């Protein structure tokens, strides 16, 4: 078991290093001058301030030093928690801006992922091998997974938000309120949360249902299922055993799908102008605030790595075989 976890940790460490290296390389090896293109978009009218910002960013990029030195100083800055200073909201540190947005993204993402996973799995298991349900659930599920996240978000915003007028369609809370712990604020927060959550949830649901349905069919072909059936065990019992076995690949699937789900959350946020990381990405792109963009990138990668590690541990806890074999089964 420790070997398994150790191996996984090594991969994650390597991924983190690769991500940081990508982050370091991109502005330096892409064509163009990042500092100039960044500052040309940040509308600074005061020439003195522009001068100060230019020297600051030139220094941060350290373009006058050798490449290995630049790389090392990039790492040392990172390990001190220094992600640079945003141009969009100068002179606020990137870290503070990101930390303000992260709770919104997490609040959207975690319930959507967990609920869609649980309900999708139940539904898929229920639909497998029952002719009518299977023939309806399968196409619907595939169409749902093929739906671009932002499009479903647009449809929901238009139908439930604008035409029906049930839910607000923009922002994380009403613009007339200030964040505090009052009942008004929390209810406004919740009503703004419903639509983005719903669109993420629905698109993700289809994928899980299909995955589970396929796994159950596969499990029902297995010897133990046939044997139980031959013994005359009730259908529900066989299903329950199949379900437990089919869960394991679905847990791995959760780790694999994480990137897609996060991408979906970012796109959904943009549609609803939800104050999370997605909207932050869009505004940092529009104002060419590369420090902010790269900070968000690192944050997302770290989040994905932590989530992957949690999933790995859950997998080891659930599947006794990984504990016994002491080998990296799924890697």
């Amino acid at each position: 078991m420790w070997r398994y976890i150790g191996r996984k940790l090594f991969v994650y460490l390597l991924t983190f290093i690769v991500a940081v290296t990508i982050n370091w390389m991109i502005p330096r090896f892409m064509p163009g001058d990042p500092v100039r293109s960044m500052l040309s978009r940040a509308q600074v009218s005061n020439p003195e301030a522009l001068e100060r910002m230019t020297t600051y960013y030139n220094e941060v990029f350290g373009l006058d030093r050798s490449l290995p030195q630049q790389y090392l100083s990039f790492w040392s800055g990172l390990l001190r928690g220094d992600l640079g200073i945003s141009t969009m909201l100068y002179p606020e540190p990137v870290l503070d801006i990101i930390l303000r947005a992260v709770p919104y993204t997490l609040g959207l993402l975690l319930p959507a992922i967990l609920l869609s996973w649980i309900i999708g799995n139940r539904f898929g298991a229920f639909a497998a091998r029952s002719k009518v349900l299977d023939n309806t659930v399968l196409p619907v599920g595939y169409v749902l997974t093929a739906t671009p996240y932002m499009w479903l978000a647009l449809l929901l915003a238009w139908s439930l938000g604008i035409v029906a007028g049930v839910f607000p369609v923009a922002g994380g809370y009403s613009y007339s309120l200030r964040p505090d712990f009052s009942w008004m604020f929390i209810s406004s927060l919740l009503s703004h949360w419903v639509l983005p959550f719903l669109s993420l949830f629905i698109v993700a649901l289809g994928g899980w249902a299909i995955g589970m349905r396929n796994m159950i069919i596969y499990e029902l072909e297995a010897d133990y299922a046939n044997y139980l059936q031959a013994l005359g065990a009730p259908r529900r019992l066989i299903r329950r055993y199949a379900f437990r076995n089919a869960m394991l690949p679905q847990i791995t699937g959760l780790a694999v799908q994480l990137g897609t789900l996060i991408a979906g959350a970012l796109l959904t946020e943009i549609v609803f102008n939800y104050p999370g990381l997605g909207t932050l990405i869009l505004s940092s792109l529009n104002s060419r605030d590369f420090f902010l963009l790269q900070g968000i990138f690192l944050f997302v990668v770290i989040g994905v790595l932590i989530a992957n590690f949690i999933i790995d541990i859950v997998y080891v806890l659930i599947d006794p075989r990984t504990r016994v074999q002491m080998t990296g089964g799924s890697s």
Partner: protein
Amino acid sequence: MTNVSGAPGTAEKAGTPEPAGERRGSETLHFARRNPKLLIGLGIVLAFLLLGIIGPFFVDHDPNQYVGPRSQPPNGEYWLGTTTFGQDIWAQFVYGVRSTFLIGTFGGGVAFLIGTTVGFVAGYKGGIVDEILNMLTNVVLVLPALVVLIVAIAYLDVRGLFIQGVFIGLTTWPWAARAVRSQALSLATRDYVDLARLSGRRTWKIITTEIAPNMSSYLVMSFILLFGGAVLTAAGLDFIGLGPSNGVSLGLMLESAVAWSALQLGMWWWFIPPGLGITIIVGSLYILNVGLDEVFNPKLREL
């Protein structure tokens, strides 16, 4: 096994699978013709492909040109209405379908090439090569593709379909590599592969002539999934505003619809067709894939 090794064995082997392959081919066709999922999926995909190929020839103006009256709902002259600037949405849609297929083929193709190469080499070679390639695959698999793409493409000043496809290919290949690797791993230990190896053939030759044909259905299905994934990823990038500069695509249509508040103005004809197009194309590709799976995999057939 030992008494058939050498050149005559392989020559004979090359002769025998011919009829077997043909028989299997007609059997496949037999089941393919009776599989509704395959037929419906294929029909829709081909219809859209045709629309993307032929449609633009019937549009006599640039899709981004301001040709008509502003904000018209769908009518006889402008089939899908016009944007707030008087652009013909039908023209944009048709060109968008074309670029959807292009980016799917291109992005999916690059990903397929990288993924299958890595998968075959890792699965066939084994040992330290497998170890290293597997590590690489896992690292790229964990990195969230769209976010990497956003950061990489944000620095490009001029963007085209080509660059977008290459970048998408570079980030979305890992799962295909994994799938191909696990298949190749089980095929690499078969007797006929050993035989080919004993006869001194080149590794690449063995992979392309002995291993790949035996998992061709698997490869086709992987490509279809990569194609769909590339389309969805490209749509996401376009929507964020990182699409091809001055291009037309379904994702870019969605972007401009949101940017010019089609939602608030109630211009449903601006944002429904592009998303619906993507959903139908990718969705029918997936259903086509299930159909293919049922045709090639007898276990799933009896449904």
